[in-house]
């Protein structure tokens, strides 16, 4: 994988990705492609981007050796890339800073976003406030209930939150609704997609903005440990935090890349959100071709995960390609295992992880157990779990 160069100019990662949208969106995507091409290597733009990442987000995020967790497991050494320490509490902000700056350069006064767990919505509302842009966030009405602290956070930041009542009332429906808004208000609106999905150029652009995570990790691991990790682990819903840390590591062939999907109640029950692990059929949704949870007539089926941020029937097209080419491996962790890892990390390391991230931690624990003590694992600790305490308390039958 030394000469990995994807996507191609039409946004294809092998058979995946592409631009599967109605004609009404083509012009907006073409405009975005041209502008992104123009700015992605532009010195002033990148300076501004990195200035905001440093002074507004607080980058670089540290790498932390989870000493007590490592001891407790008794296998490979576990390190965390601390994206939970970013402003707004997750990796999502890296991408929103990039896209909002682009919106500003393109002269769009209004930004819109979809959100599942609310982290991307909060990150978008935050940067919109910072740059003085109007902001509307679409959120499935089920997620509005599950993530009420984040809904209030977005409102505090001046964003309008629109609950989406159609379909399954979760992330995929929020994305549909945001696309509809964009088609209607295309002249003054920039759509900030929160994951490495959607039509070209989004999967590439979101990956590029998030790849600061992997780039920093390569430098920091070298400084801290003197070598690159034997495995990099990240949770995968749409897959933005995973792509962000995987992408710079693709040429490092001795580093395994492991994406952890949500097995929900278990892959065998059908109630999960793990299209890659379950080998779901390939289909077309939200502008790209990828693995997709669907019935035999192509209707998208409802997914299940305890974490709203992983509750998505598809997955970014680049992950589909990395799976097929075997450069990355994909596994799944169920609700119960994720919750156990959540509680374990709280008490062992003094870190409350997001429920999404807890899936990656649960798998890291499993893998560490099987590896010798001289091996190292780097987990992308993609977000903090403050937003999840109501969910976790609810499962334990506790009212807070």
């Amino acid at each position: 994988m030394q000469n990995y160069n994807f996507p191609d100019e039409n946004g294809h990662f092998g058979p995946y990705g592409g631009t599967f949208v109605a004609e009404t969106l083509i012009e907006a995507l073409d405009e975005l492609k041209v502008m992104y091409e123009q700015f992605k290597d532009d010195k002033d733009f990148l300076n501004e981007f990195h200035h905001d990442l440093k002074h507004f987000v607080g980058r670089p995020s540290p790498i932390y050796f989870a000493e007590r967790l490592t001891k407790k497991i008794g296998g490979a050494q576990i390190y965390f890339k601390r994206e939970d320490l970013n402003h707004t509490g997750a990796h999502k902000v890296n991408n929103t800073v990039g896209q909002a700056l682009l919106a500003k350069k393109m002269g769009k006064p209004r930004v819109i976003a979809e959100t599942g767990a609310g982290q991307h919505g909060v990150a978008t509302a935050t940067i919109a406030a910072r740059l003085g842009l109007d902001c509307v966030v679409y959120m499935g009405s089920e997620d509005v209930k599950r993530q009420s602290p984040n809904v209030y956070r977005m409102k505090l930041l001046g964003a309008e939150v629109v609950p989406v009542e159609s379909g399954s009332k979760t992330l995929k429906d929020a994305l549909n609704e945001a696309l509809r808004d964009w088609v209607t208000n295309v002249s003054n609106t920039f759509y900030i997609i929160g994951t490495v999905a959607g039509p070209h150029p989004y999967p590439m652009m979101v990956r590029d903005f998030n790849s600061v995570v992997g780039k920093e990790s390569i430098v920091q691991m070298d400084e801290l440990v003197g070598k690159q990790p034997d495995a990099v682990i990240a949770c995968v819903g749409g897959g933005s935090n995973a792509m962000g840390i995987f992408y710079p590591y693709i040429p490092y062939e001795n580093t395994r890349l492991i994406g952890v999907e949500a097995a929900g109640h278990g892959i065998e029950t059908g109630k999960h959100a793990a299209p890659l692990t379950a080998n779901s059929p390939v289909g077309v949704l939200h502008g790209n071709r990828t693995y997709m949870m669907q019935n035999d007539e192509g209707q998208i089926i409802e997914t299940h995960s305890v974490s709203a941020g992983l509750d998505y029937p598809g997955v970014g097209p680049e992950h589909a390609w990395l799976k097929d080419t075997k450069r990355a491996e994909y596994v799944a962790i169920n609700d119960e295992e994720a919750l156990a890892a959540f509680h374990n990390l709280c008490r062992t390391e003094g870190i409350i992880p997001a429920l999404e991230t807890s899936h990656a931690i649960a798998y890291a624990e499993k893998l560490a157990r099987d590896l010798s003590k001289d091996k190292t694992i780097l987990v992308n600790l993609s977000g903090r779990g403050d937003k999840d305490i109501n969910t976790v308390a609810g499962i334990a039958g506790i009212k807070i």
Partner: protein
Amino acid sequence: MSRIRKTFDTLKISNQKALIPFVTAGDPSPEMTIKILHQLVTSGADMIELGIPFSDPMADGPIIQRASERALAKNVGIRKTLEIAKEFRKQNQVTPLILMGYANPIEAIGIDEFLKLCKSSDIDGVITVDYPPEESKAYVEKLKQNDIDAIFLLAPTTEKKRIEQIIKQASGFLYYVSLKGVTGAQNIDIEQVKNRVGEIKSLTDLPIGVGFGVRDPETAKNVAKFSDAIVIGSRIIQEIEASDESNMLENINKIIRSIKQVI
């Protein structure tokens, strides 16, 4: 000559424009859809656009999405849609039938299987909303080999160079989306639509249908002055939503007649 083209040619002789109503297959039930299709023809529809229900209809507004949800609740998907079309064809071999749907259900059963079913239901044209020409060359080729027209959307934002490229792949007619938005939206700007349709007409001999914002006889009348066909969807689905089975056909009859009279 395709049935679609023949219909346009016949209408032209009497200086009429085509009325193309849209309904979603299976809304409110498969049995009712067949009755509705026949009613549309009786009331004056020149062709019919039949929607394939999809769980995630991104280009449609809330009205057509609800129609999809009602149809899916009756277990109507792509296969059942084609069965409904086949049933309609038993009594009507004249009116062109155009399927409108999204790529995923078609890919899920396979393009070849889809074409086989289209042939057996005698389908005349297909609009695949999220297959832009650059992602669907092989598919369009197969449609043509099967004598099925590949109908493409053109948007207010589509640039001239791209229109020319789309015209090369399109057949049957071109579907001009009259506004920036989703189906069922309000308030189209007639002058703007007129200018755009004029521009497209200067590039092609293909007939041009206008849809996405036509909701009443007045708008239909004005749009028909410079286009070849009017597509009307959400407005009919609203009638379906507001009616019960006893008055549904009559309510649809009224709206279709009121539009057909003026175009």
